[in-house]
């Protein structure tokens, strides 16, 4: 155990952990939204994120620019990527809901059936991007599908630059962009759910679907809305992932999805602010843990955190609620 490294670089690790956790938090929102309303773990959400990363890659490889783009170009590229990724991810999430979950809901299928379907959907999406699309489009879009099932690098949009130093801690521009954009997205979502008319519908269905229906809330529309919202957040996460990690592959969602789910549970699944807290917390724990034990144990740390949380505080740090906790 390497305590010295942890203590001497504590501040630096904290900044790293926060920027990592911000992405977890955004993806975690998708799990939390769906769970809050349907009490269903949307296993396929990790693939919603994966589709988003490919949309980002598509924009950044197909829009022509040379070298490192100027700040103005970078902003345009980021916005384009955001639009593409949110459309792709939101559309995927909506399609999953319509095609896979809706027929099951009509039949009142037990939770096990939903879970298995979600796994199947997840496998389908991973394989479409790992095999089907490379076979079909490998030649037309070699930058995206030229190397199936392999890491594909993304072009650098923003060059990493150190912005400022506090004490021993140096903060770079990418970390600031990631954390700030994640916070802005989450604030928007929080406002949407808590302050708008649509958000009120979501909360109403989360609290009591039957009463909400009696009060004139269109339940089906609410369910579609939450899937799209979750997808949009995953799309935003995909853009930040593109800036921070700079690569993607067809199975990029698997581990990230598990961690985002852990973050959602950690904060209290169904609780929007809990997802933020859980994501940041998990990012920190992971970076600290990786420093203590070595990075090859990084993934194990998240799973162990998940098991410990579920054992001792299954409702998470902030408790379950989207509206109020349901029994």
């Amino acid at each position: 155990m390497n305590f010295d490294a942890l203590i001497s670089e504590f501040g630096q690790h904290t900044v790293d952990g926060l920027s990592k956790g911000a992405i977890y938090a955004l993806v975690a929102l998708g799990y939390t939204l769906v769970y809050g309303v349907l009490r269903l773990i949307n296993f396929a959400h990790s693939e919603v994120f994966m589709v988003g990363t490919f949309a980002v890659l598509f924009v950044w490889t197909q829009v022509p620019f040379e070298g490192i783009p100027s700040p103005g170009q970078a902003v345009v590229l980021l916005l384009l990527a955001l639009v593409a990724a949110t459309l792709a991810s939101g559309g995927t999430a909506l399609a999953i809901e319509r095609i896979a979950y809706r027929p099951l809901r009509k039949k009142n299928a037990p939770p096990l059936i939903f879970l298995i379907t979600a796994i199947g959907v997840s496998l389908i999406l991973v394989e479409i991007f790992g095999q089907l699309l490379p076979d079909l489009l490998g030649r037309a879009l070699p930058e995206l599908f030229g190397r199936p099932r392999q890491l594909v690098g993304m072009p650098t949009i923003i060059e990493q630059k150190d912005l400022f130093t506090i004490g021993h801690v140096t903060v770079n521009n990418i970390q600031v962009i990631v954390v700030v954009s994640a916070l802005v997205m989450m604030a928007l979502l929080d406002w949407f759910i808590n302050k708008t008319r649509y958000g009120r519908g979501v909360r109403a269905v989360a609290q009591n679907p039957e009463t909400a229906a009696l009060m004139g809330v269109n339940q089906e529309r609410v369910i579609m809305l939450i899937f799209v919202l979750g997808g949009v957040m995953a799309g935003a996460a995909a853009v930040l992932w593109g800036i921070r990690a700079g690569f993607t592959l067809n199975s990029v969602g698997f581990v990230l999805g598990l961690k985002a789910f852990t973050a959602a549970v950690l904060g209290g699944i169904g609780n929007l602010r809990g997802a933020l807290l859980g994501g940041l917390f998990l990012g920190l724990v992971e970076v600290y843990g990786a420093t203590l034990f070595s990075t090859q144990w990084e993934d194990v740390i998240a799973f162990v955190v998940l098991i410990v949380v579920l054992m001792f505080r299954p409702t998470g740090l902030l408790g379950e609620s989207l509206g109020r906790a349901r029994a």
Partner: protein
Amino acid sequence: MSQSVDTSVPRIGRLDAVRDRWQNLPKWQKSLGAVAGIAFLYYLPLLGIPGLTWFRTDSIEGGSSWAGTLFTCAIYVLVAIGLNVVIGLAGLLDLGYIGFFAIGAYGVGLFGSVNSPVVKLIQERFDLPATWAVGWVLCAFIAVLLTMISGVILGWPTLRLRGDYLAIVTLGFGEIIRIVARNMVGVTNGPVGISAIPGPEGPPSSDNNIFGLVDVKPWYWLAITFVLVMVFAVRRLEHSRVGRAWLAVREDEDAAAVMGVNPFKFKLWAFAIGAALGGLSGMLFASRYAFIDPTQFNANLSILFVAMVVVGGSGNMAGVALGAVLLGYLPERFREIADYRWLAFGVAMVLVMILRPQGLIPSRRRARELKDRAAEAEEAPAHV
């Protein structure tokens, strides 16, 4: 009633009629049929009946070894029977079953191979010759025991969780096992893997007359023997007090608890027994190939195992066995789809869940349960 329910009812009826006829046959005819069926299973690797040779995987160009495919199918069936206890009978979704398979494989590898760090440590400690290793039979016991223990260790803290949480925790467990096998180089040789894993005749060498690396037929016969024994054992278990308790817990945990069935205890049993079968299968896998490394145990296989159970018909042993054979055999015989096998598995899972959630050969009880729920949904459409 929705369209899909309407179409599936008569089909279950036809299958049921076949089943009923079989059950109503006189006892001697039934045993004769069973003996003939078993004899055919043992004859399969030699399959040479004109017309049926089309089924052999080596009947196509560049096809893989027929006995090898049969062996794979047999250990998949073993896995499916074990996972069926967990998913089909006890109703617990285990997405980390590959973890138990890996523990079984590593169990025999770590104690039976002269190349394993564990064996080397024991040699040093007790001044044993460098050729010494634990015998295969003992290794097999150790492997199964280890998986059973790990099943209990995983189940103890997690089986009190809600079903969906359990699924994710087990998924994490499967990954942890793989990462541990990769990282603990001092125990498992890490990414290098373990070679010279013994079979029933001892470590692999050219002197072995029966269980060699080239001729897979004896391995298939060994595996199918294990399968038959386990089918018999699990069948007995299914119809015992334990089996009834599993069904009760699956259908309504609270009601079962009120009736004096301790849900936790029986879930733990299901987990341990399921794990042991996974371990047994992993043990056979490691012995047959005489080599294992961590990349052979990735999470996709867990999903494949779940797909075998649910596509075949969870809760029904014949169903899950069919699922295992289909998913193991089809990609080998039809090489054109080999690249798309995972996509096909995913599509099959989703389609079966939406159109025929009880699986290809359903368990009657499970089919009724699902129909009841669908009927409830018709009565109270406001329910989510």
